[in-house]
């Protein structure tokens, strides 16, 4: 039985130009993994904005909150109304920060790139420069042509008057997509060849790291590579950031051979007994199933209570995109294995 789990990682490092000026990193990446969705966001603060760094943080934070609140309804909405929702939410978030700081909202200007997936559905979007790579049929292709001006130092920001017109949002089934990589223009200088319009092999390779390593290890590696390799290349002086959303497909028995930390992240279970029970359920599911009495069959095979089995089934179905369906509701009164061995949704992680 093949499991499909979307995983996320990301990192942002200060560029040499900002470092020499004593300024901080104005790129920000954030990612969020819950049982309902996996999301990544990246913002590049405007060099001309006084609070570029804070603005990028707000853009990422607001975007992840929108996903958290509205992701399940997005599949029913046209892309332009989602674009408008994103821009108006950004305006609200930035307005209050700008008022507190006593400056105009444009002092918090940043670009915005994002992607989120869950339940077989994918949404991605971009405003301003930077690039989004979409992995289809083993190849990385640009999601869209970024809106940029004639000159290197011109682009559109979340605070621009025409932002709602320029934001690109696309949504649909995620079947054909194996991964998405967001990159700021500082990173794109080393990862996208402008003339041939092709991505560097590194983009494919970095996305693949999530197939074999935990998100925390991949985020750490991304940071080290941005810091040690990419930002030190000749002519690269801008802040560099990258965020990866990757479909990690794996057989149950292959997963069982992986390191405990990887299994724990993949199945979203921190405790040893929760992980063990999840594996028991997955293995029981791998044998030919009965048309009726499926839960009972798994209970017999695993020794778990019906409520525990139902919870695992429900949760694993969402996390690992399994296609089985058990419509029997989880009974609140079945309390034998009541303790939640499924971790609650982790807080979004931020990198600057």
């Amino acid at each position, binding site marked *: 039985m093949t499991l499909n789990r979307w995983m996320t990682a990301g990192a942002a490092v200060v560029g040499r130009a900002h470092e020499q000026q004593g300024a901080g990193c104005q790129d920000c990446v954030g990612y969020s993994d819950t049982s309902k969705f996996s999301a990544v966001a990246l913002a590049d603060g405007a060099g001309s904005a006084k609070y570029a760094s804070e603005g990028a943080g707000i853009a990422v934070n607001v975007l992840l909150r929108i996903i958290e609140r509205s992701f399940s309804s997005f599949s029913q909405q046209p892309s332009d109304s989602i674009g408008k929702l994103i821009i108006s939410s950004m305006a609200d978030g930035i307005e209050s920060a700008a008022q507190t700081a006593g400056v105009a909202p444009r002092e918090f200007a940043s670009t915005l790139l994002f992607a989120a997936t869950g339940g077989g559905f994918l949404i991605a979007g971009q405003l301003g420069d930077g690039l989004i790579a979409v992995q289809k049929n083993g190849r990385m292709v640009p999601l869209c042509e970024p809106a940029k001006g004639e000159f*290197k*130092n011109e682009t559109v920001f979340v605070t621009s008057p025409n932002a709602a017109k320029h934001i690109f949002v696309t949504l649909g089934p995620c079947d054909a997509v194996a991964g998405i990589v967001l990159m700021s223009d500082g990173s794109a200088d*080393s990862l996208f060849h*402008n003339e041939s319009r092709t991505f*560097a092999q590194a983009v494919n390779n970095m996305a693949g790291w999530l197939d074999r390593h935990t998100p925390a*290890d991949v985020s750490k590696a991304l940071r080290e590579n941005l810091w040690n390799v990419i930002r030190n290349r000749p002519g690269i002086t801008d802040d560099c950031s990258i965020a990866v959303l990757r479909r990690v497909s794996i057989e149950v028995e292959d997963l069982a051979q992986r390191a405990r930390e990887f299994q724990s992240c993949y199945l979203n279970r921190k405790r040893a007994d929760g992980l063990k029970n999840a594996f028991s359920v997955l293995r029981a599911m791998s044998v030919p199933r009965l048309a009726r009495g499926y839960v009972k069959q798994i209970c017999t095979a695993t020794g778990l209570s019906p409520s525990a089995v139902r919870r695992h089934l429900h949760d694993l179905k969402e996390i690992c995109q399994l296609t089985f369906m058990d419509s029997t509701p989880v009974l609140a009164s079945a309390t034998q294995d009541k303790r939640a061995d499924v971790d609650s949704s982790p807080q979004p992680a931020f990198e600057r």
Partner: protein
Amino acid sequence: MTDDMTLREEELVSNPTARVPVCLCLDTSGSMGGDPIDELNVGVATFLEGLRSDEVAQFAAEVAIVTFGGFVSELLDCASLSRVEAPSLSAYGETPMGQAVEKALDLLEARKREYSNAGVDYFQPWLALMTDGQPTDAIDRAVNRTAALVQSRKLSVFAVGVGEAADMTVLSRFSPNRQPLRLRGLRFRQFFEWLSKSVVRVSQSTPRQDVPLDLLGIKDWGTV
């Protein structure tokens, strides 16, 4: 495939450095003869050297030189610095400034088209205009073209007058957004040092960063 999660150089791509096209439009009319033209030659050489010695600007800056002394001459055509040698300018004739500025704008426009065709990013072009007198040809068309570009933020102009005879009113028509400055004595070298440092700062600017001019540095070579 690298399972140690370390990127190798061969997994990355290289793009051309974003360019800063700069055109020096210089008065080499007869009145520049003697010390002024000698100092101007030193200044232009200083400018090129200042750009060459910077890690980013040596690849980013591309310099064109148009002179106007008797006739308009195109000495450098937005060449990459590695292929450029400092010219030896001599003073001669009248001051066809209008024609020279139009030539400078043509060169910058043509270079931008080349960048676009080759997928090379570029910054706003710069035009440095220096004169010690007043034009001896019609300048209205050149003024209109320049002002339109400046006002649409498609060109940055630095207009500098040399000596008391420089017509600052004419220069201000070419530079509607930035007051032209008068060179202190013959401090060409100091001006070109300042100009090269300013180009360096633009070439290293992160996208969307408005690079403020080094106003303190201007005092070293210019007065209002």
